[in-house]
């Protein structure tokens, strides 16, 4: 009854100055909402980063071939072969015990056309020489037909599997299965044995792994690639040549047990850099280690976000204190009356604390509501930008396009408790100042 009355009274006093109280609440609202928002966005970003890394497979080690920068404008050339070799591929798959298998991959940008439609412009795409395991490791799913088979690898078959997007571009009105795909630059034909389902692009990870867009890929057996395409690429651009020679673009090393990954990665490095420790034409990417790093970064990130949010809560708290100090001065007379009528110092303290806590709790609760709106709001903002300003949207960083904020559940009670805490901490000084007033002086106050 009495407690009820105290709260009732506090709220009545606050409603005496609705605008002032609302502004004070706003300070806490922003503080609490920003705690939840920042943590949700931080969580969304780091989850996205983790998802991208996990996309590569935590149990995989990826070795990429890197084309060294052209030295001395080598117009005339001694062709320098670079990158992983088939011999190294063999070495990796046979000498390291923890390695389950090694997938050889060779990628080549080229043009594709359909023989049945000679007038259509050839489409730029990517020719990928690989093995059957590639589909599993890269999570490719077959829509129709089949992916490359072991028999096709052995027989160096002239077959290919094509990505969904490329299929629909080359064959707008026909069934691509069993049609012949033509590569104008290589003057080669491949029979289409499978069409894949759509697969989302992967993001770039670190410096050495570019993002991959699978939508215009054509997969052929790696053996076929070696036999028919060879290792040397000659590109004519304008008047000049560029020649590059490499055997493999990538080896994806599958390790049986995730725990063996770091050790295996060291062995892989040692094997490949045996002759030249400073070898620049390969890069070893270990998603597992990146993942561990990302988790550590996430913690720092969260702490940083939390710090920013905490600062905004403190600013809100100072707002409360400021208002309460003004209120206490303004209500000196009332304090005097209450003391004269029998209010103890503690009654006065409690009365003002109740008011600050009311403010901060209302700010906290509305702040939580505002915080919960974060995912919806981010989604809506993204939609608005995409529809309203596509150019601006295109320039957004990749993570801003795909990230979806994820409310961190603990942030809700934490934000609420902190807001109450802020109310108490910043309300305590004004309340005690009120209580310490001499009742006689206070009564005389105009």
């Amino acid at each position: 009854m009495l407690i009820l009355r105290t709260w009732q009274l506090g709220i009545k006093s606050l409603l005496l100055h609705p605008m002032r109280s609302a502004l004070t609440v706003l300070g806490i609202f922003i503080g609490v909402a920003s705690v939840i928002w920042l943590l949700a966005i931080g969580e969304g970003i780091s989850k996205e980063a983790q998802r991208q890394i996990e996309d590569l497979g935590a149990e995989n080690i990826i070795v990429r071939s890197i084309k060294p920068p052209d030295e001395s404008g080598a117009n005339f050339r001694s062709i320098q072969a670079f990158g992983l070799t088939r011999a190294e591929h063999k070495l990796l798959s046979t000498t390291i015990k923890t390695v389950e298998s090694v997938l050889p991959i060779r990628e080549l940008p080229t043009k594709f056309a359909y023989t049945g439609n000679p007038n259509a412009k050839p489409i730029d795409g990517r020719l990928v020489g690989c093995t059957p395991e590639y589909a599993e490791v890269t999570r490719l799913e077959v829509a129709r037909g089949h992916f490359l088979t072991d028999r096709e690898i052995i027989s160096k078959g002239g077959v290919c599997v094509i990505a969904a997007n490329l299929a629909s571009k080359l064959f707008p009105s026909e069934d691509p299965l069993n049609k012949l795909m033509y590569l104008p630059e290589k003057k080669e034909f491949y029979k289409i044995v499978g069409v894949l389902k759509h697969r989302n692009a992967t993001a770039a990870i670190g410096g050495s792994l570019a993002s991959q867009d699978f939508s215009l890929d054509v997969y052929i057996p790696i053996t076929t690639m070696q036999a028919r395409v060879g290792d040397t690429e000659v590109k004519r651009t304008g008047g000049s040549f560029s020649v590059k020679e490499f055997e493999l673009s990538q080896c994806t090393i599958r390790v049986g047990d995730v725990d063996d990954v770091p050790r295996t990665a060291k062995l892989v490095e040692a094997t490949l850099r045996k002759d030249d420790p400073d070898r620049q034409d390969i890069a070893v990417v270990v998603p597992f280690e990146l993942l561990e790093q990302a988790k550590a970064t996430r913690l720092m990130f969260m702490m940083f976000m939390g710090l920013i949010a905490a600062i905004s809560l403190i600013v809100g708290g100072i707002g409360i204190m400021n208002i309460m100090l003004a209120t206490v001065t303004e209500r000196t007379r009332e304090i005097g009356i209450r003391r004269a009528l029998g209010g103890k110092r503690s009654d006065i303290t409690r009365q003002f604390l109740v008011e600050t806590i009311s403010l901060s709790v209302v700010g906290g609760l509305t702040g939580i509501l505002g915080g919960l709106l974060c995912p919806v709001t981010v989604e809506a903002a993204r939609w608005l930008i995409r529809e309203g300003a596509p150019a601006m949207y295109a320039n957004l960083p990749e993570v801003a396009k795909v990230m979806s904020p994820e409310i961190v559940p603990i942030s809700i009670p934490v934000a609420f408790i902190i807001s109450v805490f802020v109310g108490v901490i910043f309300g305590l000084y004004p309340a005690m100042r009120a209580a310490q007033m001499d009742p006689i002086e206070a009564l005389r106050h105009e």
Partner: protein
Amino acid sequence: MSSIPTVKSNDQTAETNGQNVLAARVRELQKHYVLKSETVRALRGVSFDVPEGDYVAIMGASGSGKSTLLNLLGCLDRPTSGSFVLGGDDVATMTDDELSQIRASRIGFVFQSYNLIAQLTVVENIEVPLYYMGQLNAESRKRCKQLAAMVGLGDRLDHRPTQLSGGQQQRVAIARSLVNDPYFMLADEATGNLDSVTTDEILALFQMLNDQGRTIIMVTHEDEVSEHAKRMIRLKDGEIQIDKRIENRKTFPPEVIKKISMGTD
């Protein structure tokens, strides 16, 4: 907290113990204010008794010590020396919290500037001392309404102070001062802000309450006001200069008294 405060009934004790029950007993009360350059001796040994049912006007020139004495009687301050016994307890030695307790339960304040709390309604203002005594309940609410009715504001229970005239506000303050059934009512220039008609209304109310047995101590500098009291104490330089019964006391006729509770205006 469920039962209504069984406050000591002054009338009852008066009947059982005879005439000489004291509402307050003041002995050699001194109050010194120690300032940097000097010590102001605002009260220099004041002694008097206030029997229950008395109606005292404290008078004196400005600076004579009236406010200081009133603050002590109201337990808002502690004397430098001397004793002030209120209902058997010497207030001079009490802690701040104990003084607050005493103010809530034994003293009724009426101020010159009414001093109602702006955000509360008439009934809620009357309830404040009970709130600090921890004795708010449905029955006490009823009592507050009765008190409001007694001072003629039964139809304005839910009004805010700003919606009332000065005289009406002072009536609320008087009702509030009675809600804890105090040992005495302490009125500090209670009519100082009011015109002569309203002053008469308030004085009539005081007379009615005093006739019912209520002890009243009021500070005033107006002779017309003090003439309504039964006794006058005049202070001079912190000492009692005169302490006498008022002869030819002015009283209001019964029909005026009757009108009080009929509602104002």
